């Protein structure tokens, strides 16, 4: 008897990427851009989305897929601000959303009546960088309560992203965070990154964010 070797040479992410392609195709057919919001836990993804839904909800039809390890608390918070279905994905321990979860979530969303889709990923700067969800762009939220050197600690996420949105700018007078220093670290790993600065609580800096969203909904900013 012989032990035989079967040559495989297949990418481990191949199945996810195939499903991400299906997500992308469905969104393209429906003309819906999708933005994948990623960050450390507690950077303010849900808060920014709450404010965005409250401010734009009457003019821009936004659907949301939220991912959390446990609870649908974020989806419940967002549902207060929109009549649209907020689709919660509980990952049951997984540290990221995958394309299969997003594809399943799309079944519950009326894409024909949607202008823009947000995917609020699990708070984690490591694993979500590796999983294509069929989004148009990853947006990293970077709060001023974090260290400015996050981009060099977690380079893959910042390399994969199109934009960095600084959050909690209202706290800037109380913390040692220097925005220009953080931008320098961002540019070390990805010179192409775009930047916005926001505070969802005060609120401040949201007009630029909304301008970006409107441009995406109308067909993209690049």
């Amino acid at each position, binding site marked *: *008897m*012989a032990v*035989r070797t*079967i*040559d*495989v*040479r297949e990418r481990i992410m191949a199945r996810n990427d195939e499903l991400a392609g299906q997500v992308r195709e469905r969104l393209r057919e429906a003309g819906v851009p999708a933005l994948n919001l990623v960050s450390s836990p507690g950077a303010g993804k849900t808060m920014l989305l709450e404010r965005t839904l409250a401010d734009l909800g009457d003019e821009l039809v936004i659907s949301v897929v939220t991912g959390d390890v446990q609870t649908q608390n974020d989806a419940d918070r967002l549902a207060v601000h929109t009549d649209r279905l907020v689709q919660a994905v509980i990952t049951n321990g*997984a540290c990221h959303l995958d394309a299969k979860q997003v594809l399943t979530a799309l079944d519950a969303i009326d894409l024909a009546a949607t202008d823009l889709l947000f995917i609020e990923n699990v708070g984690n700067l490591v694993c979500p*960088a590796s999983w294509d969800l069929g989004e148009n762009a990853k947006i990293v939220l970077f709060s001023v309560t974090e260290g400015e050197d996050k981009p060099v600690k977690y380079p893959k996420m910042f390399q994969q992203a199109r934009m960095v949105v600084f959050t909690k700018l209202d706290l800037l007078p109380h913390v040692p965070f220097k925005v220009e220093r953080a931008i320098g670290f961002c540019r070390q790993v990805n010179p192409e990154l775009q930047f916005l600065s926001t505070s969802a609580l005060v609120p401040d800096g949201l007009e630029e964010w909304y301008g970006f969203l409107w441009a995406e909904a109308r067909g993209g900013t690049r």
Partner: protein
Amino acid sequence: MHELGLALEVCRMTEERLGSDGMAQVRAVGVEIGDDAGIEVGNFQFCLETLLAEPPFRGARPVILRRPGDVLRLAYLEVDDGRPDD
């Protein structure tokens, strides 16, 4: 968690290729991992070894092949399927 998810995906790919009956015949699983793949190799190897020790596998051996770049792929399967030597 990331490494466990990837190790589970390797098991799914193995089943897809060999069928559920063939998984008991696997002796080794070769996985190429790039230095920039974002994988903690020791953790991944431990997760895969744990999964391969449990049915329907029968103690197959994970073989990690380090590579430059961000490659992450199932390279090969070694199976003893009971067929006579060629």
